[in-house]
């Protein structure tokens, strides 16, 4: 997993609320047995017509936003299906950070497993960031994970909260499984205890 430290990039405004994971990556693209290659189908039904041509008014099709690395989104981003193909598709497109007032729980967890930073901000801050994102390619937003700030193109800076363990893993690109394996002795002793107490498990 790639480390996440700071990011300065173009932010795409997507004010729609309840952007679900079916929108982010429709089910016909879940038939892959790989993690890579999903970026071209990110937001597929919003982004392309049935004949495969681009819908020109969709934000990521507009020249200013084709290289976006951040999305500023409406409430409850990533709701619905648990498919990790959603963060895989975002990452494959080049998105490393999503900012919203709220995220669905499973999507939120999935982001951290893939080096994507989901940032929760209050509505008034999201409103300011959304306006900044609407300025286009010349207005680059900066996300600083270490200091937990987002800074707009005109220098307004806002702090955000983040679980310290998740921050540590993201900043260092750490593999969860490796970390848990270090606690194998705890898992062994838990299993030994429970197999006596609840043998039917």
């Amino acid at each position: 997993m790639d480390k996440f430290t700071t990011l300065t990039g173009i932010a795409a405004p997507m004010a729609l609320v309840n952007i679900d994971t079916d929108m982010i990556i429709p089910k016909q693209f879940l038939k892959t047995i790989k993690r890579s290659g999903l970026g071209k189908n990110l937001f597929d039904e919003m982004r392309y017509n049935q004949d495969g041509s681009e819908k020109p008014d969709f934000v990521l099709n507009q020249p200013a936003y084709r290289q976006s690395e951040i999305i500023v989104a409406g409430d409850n981003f990533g709701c619905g299906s648990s498919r990790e193909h959603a963060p895989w598709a975002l990452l494959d497109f080049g998105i490393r950070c999503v900012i919203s007032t709220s995220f669905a729980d499973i999507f939120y967890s999935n982001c951290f497993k893939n080096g994507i930073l989901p940032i929760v901000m209050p509505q008034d801050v999201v409103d300011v960031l959304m306006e900044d994102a609407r300025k286009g390619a010349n207005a680059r937003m900066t996300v600083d994970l270490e200091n937990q700030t987002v800074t707009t193109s005109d220098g307004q800076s806002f702090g955000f909260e983040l679980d310290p363990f998740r921050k540590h893993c993201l900043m260092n690109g750490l593999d969860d499984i490796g970390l848990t394996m270090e606690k194998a002795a705890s898992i062994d002793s838990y299993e030994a205890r429970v197999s006596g107490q609840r043998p039917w498990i």
Partner: protein
Amino acid sequence: MTAPRTLYDKIWDEHVVHQAEDGTCLLYIDRHLVHEVTSPQAFEGLRMTGRPVRAPEKTIAVPDHNVPTTPGRENPDQMPEESRIQVAALDKNARDFGIHYYPVTDIRQGIVHIVGPEQGWTLPGMTVVCGDSHTATHGAFGALAHGIGTSEVEHVLATQTLIQQKSKNLKVEITGSLRPGVTAKDITLSVIGATGTAGGTGYVIEYCGQAIRELSMEGRMTVCNMAIEGGARAGLIAPDEKTFAYVMGRPHAPKGAAWEAALAYWKTLYTDEGAHFDKVITLKGEDIAPVVTWGTSPEDVLPITGSVPAASDFAGGKVGAAQRSLDYMGLTPGMKLTDIKIDTVFIGSCTNGRIEDLRAAAAILKGKKIAPGMRAMVVPGSGLVRAQAEEEGLAQIFLDAGMEWRLAGCSMCLAMNPDQLAPGERCAATSNRNFEGRQGRGGRTHLMSPAMAAAAALTGYLTDVREMMAETV
């Protein structure tokens, strides 16, 4: 003396393997359910790192999302190549890693959330996970059950644990009794309608109250199944005599002395008097009507007696979303919901693909024909549900009515297999999501109970099933 705890607190406490100073916990997982769509990358990760499955005896796999529901499907050539590869990968992974497996040729195959309880894998007090958001279903047994992503699937395969932060406690109480024609589906949709799809974010729900107690296990599974649609990772119902009766004698339920020991433990699984809930929502069972969704979010719920809303009825970001939904769904504000014409009916899914659901639909359909031109399919949730429905004569009722009677699978709930809607096709569905494109690109989904879907199949319009029940009396 310990402080009073909720049911969620108790199950959580029993499964903490390790707690870090910042509160991050390593939680033990008792049952891991696996299907073909969200697992290939996880098994590939194990192969790349040379890690085995830590507890194959606690890991159960079944293909359900991709599989065709038409006869002859044991021939893999029936599937498009990508689906075939994914199912073949699960076959191989189950074999290579030595986990329990129900292939499509096994009568016990079905939707993973129907197979787990049916086979007695799901038991009270357990932690249950699956790479599927509707894992919440298993909460009906008083198990802490939730969906996970593929990286977490790999984590559980390798370590039988998950790194978790504890959620907050949300109590959803349904007082009193339901009125005739109102079902578990109407409860769960009405709760989402009241809280919104983000109302449960960060919470685990405990459903309680007389109306919940009065539900069968099938109905309780329907309620918990859609906890995720309200934003909660998990929904729970405290186990009781109905739970124990359902579990007893299932193939993987404990037997003999182990049963007695298990039962004694399960009877401790309830929320203590005075335990703290961070939020409480109460609905009166008598106030719940048969409901349908009109839009493209499960929170877009209205009683069937209502009318299509206008975008201006909403506030904030929902104004734009509502307008987008109205455009997508092809609906005009003010039109009566019962004037909405339906092309297709889908009865099935992990929400409503159990025997009781099929009985409810058959009761409405018995001796009648579906509307001319209507396409209607009934997809049982497992091979065993299918066999039981055939034995009870339900399958014949569906066939006589002019409906298709399919093999078990997820089918048109998410349309990964050939069961899909065409653009603009409007469906009355007993599944769980009405998102844009969910049942096929451009497809329009209205969610409802099996009885309501059956009523719509007969009239060709969204229909208040209560009128039809009056007719048959």
